[in-house]
């Protein structure tokens, strides 16, 4: 709100430090563990003949980058969704983004037998964007008349519709089911084959738009009438927010598949740490998202050797209990 409080700045610095640690772990841990010195060497003096360096540069580095982008995007998108719908249970999936991506992926598998990671990733983004646009139009937000309830309902309805179509398609064709059931859990393992640079740019644009809308969303949090009398053009604020959510979620779902729960969890942890101002929350959730995602990814690599547990599973599996613990402690420990 009033610039960054000193405490907020400290919290953000601590989160950034923790994220750096998680990033290092993400480079070191796996079926072929690397010592910190080895990982560092592979980064600064890569040796193409050293298989350890190849693993790091071709597998773990893209995977780390995808985790950073997808995690930050989901965290920030969750903040935006909760702010614009004024609903503490809102999460990016509510806008129909994940259902749209699912439908596009399944349709691709059903009609054209698409099954490689790069093509699925390319299908997921337009699917997500179209679904979000449809929710926006159905919710009538373009005319400034759409309240948070209409938007939420439009998202829920479209999600139900698209998921029933997905169900119908995968029932008819087993190949489509096979493709979809792996994709839908969410994974960073195929990051190297996904359009990393492009999606990073899309997410960055979404993130900057989100930060620019922060003050207007702070006004919107006080209610529609209060926001407008504070000079916020609420129709445009909603439109901009949904554009940012679409960019952020579209990038995340394209890079990692529909990772569940992170977009719900990160905003709540952020609010507990830095208070209800939208801009500080965006920054905090943008750090918490990748922190949780990278830790879940690392845990998934060592949980069931020699295999891997997909990051979408680990995020909810580890994040759920931690989230409940934190939420309970925050309630109890809230200053009187």
């Amino acid at each position: 709100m009033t610039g960054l409080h000193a405490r907020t700045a400290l919290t953000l610095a601590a989160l950034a430090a923790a994220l750096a640690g998680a990033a290092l772990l993400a480079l070191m841990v796996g079926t072929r563990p690397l010592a910190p010195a080895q990982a560092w060497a592979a980064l600064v003096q890569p040796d193409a003949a050293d298989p350890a360096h190849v693993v790091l540069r071709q597998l773990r580095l893209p995977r780390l980058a995808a985790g950073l982008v997808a995690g930050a995007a989901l965290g920030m998108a969750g903040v935006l969704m909760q702010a614009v719908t004024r609903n503490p249970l809102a999460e990016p999936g509510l806008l129909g983004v994940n259902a749209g991506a699912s439908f596009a992926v399944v349709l691709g598998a059903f009609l054209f037998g698409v099954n490689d990671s790069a093509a699925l990733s390319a299908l997921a983004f337009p699917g997500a964007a179209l679904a979000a646009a449809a929710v926006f139009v159905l919710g009538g937000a373009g005319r400034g008349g759409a309240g948070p309830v209409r938007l939420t309902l439009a998202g829920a309805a479209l999600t139900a519709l698209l998921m029933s179509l997905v169900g119908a398609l995968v029932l008819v064709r087993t190949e489509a089911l096979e493709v979809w059931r792996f994709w839908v859990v969410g994974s960073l393992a195929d990051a190297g084959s996904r359009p990393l640079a492009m999606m990073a740019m899309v997410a960055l644009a979404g993130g900057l738009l989100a930060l620019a809308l922060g003050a207007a969303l702070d006004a919107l949090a006080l209610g529609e009438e209060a926001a407008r009398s504070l000079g916020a053009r609420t129709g445009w604020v909603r439109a901009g927010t949904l554009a940012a959510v679409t960019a952020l979620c579209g990038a995340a779902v394209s890079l990692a598949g529909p990772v569940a729960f992170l977009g719900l969890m990160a905003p709540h942890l952020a609010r507990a740490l830095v208070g209800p101002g939208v801009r500080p929350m965006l920054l905090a959730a943008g750090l918490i998202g990748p922190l949780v995602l990278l830790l879940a990814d690392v845990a998934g690599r060592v949980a069931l050797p020699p295999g891997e547990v997909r990051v979408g599973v680990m995020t909810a599996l580890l994040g759920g209990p931690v989230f409940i613990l934190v939420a309970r402690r925050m309630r109890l420990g809230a200053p009187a």
Partner: protein
Amino acid sequence: MTGLRAENLTLAYDRRIVVEGLTLALPAGRVTAILGPNGCGKSTLLKALARLIRPQAGRVTLDGEDIHALPTRAVARRLGLLPQAPIAPEGITVGDLVARGRAPWRGLLAGWSAADEAARAAALAATGLTDLAARPVADLSGGQRQRVWIALALAQQTEHLLLDEPTTWLDLPHQIEVLALLRRLNREQGRSIVTVLHDLSLAARFADHLVLMAAGRVLAEGTPEEVLTPGALEDAFGLRALVIADPVTGTPLVVPA
């Protein structure tokens, strides 16, 4: 044409006409109370004055200019509205909530300026909240919370301040506290205040100018003595009442018969 005026205003929700052909000049630099029975259109009128709804016919002017021809932000720097049920974000402190009143004065990515801080400090001081600035809003009493919202509107630094039933939900001492605060802000800072109120006798005590509405029209306006007559009360509310002089202030006191 200074101040806020409604000219031949017709307001409707979809097809249902709530206010029809209403013309009204709100005296600048005064406290005006809008009175009337439930559903008479007084809140709707206030929303139209605050540019929240677009009139079906007629216009609202601010210093002679059509309020809908002015940019949203420009209006927000001159006219503030405290709605009936604003929402306090979960966990927000008094100081942070009042700071949000600075929204129309801040740039897109601008930081918190010295002028912002001065406006917030003055708003907190005027409402007696300086010592509570770091407290969560959720911890405050109803009367204190209403003062926080008024402080937010003060931090907005508008010459006109519109309030929609600011004393609803408050007990009598807190109602008096809020109304006394509004009058003090008017007297000390020269702000024009327009408030929708339910309590007729309190309105007579604290407002300079009363507007009595019924069925979307203005029945009477003027000083409390001019407006609050047994005949007008019968016409507006269907209420048979005596009007006597308030033994404390001498203003009209409505005693239902």
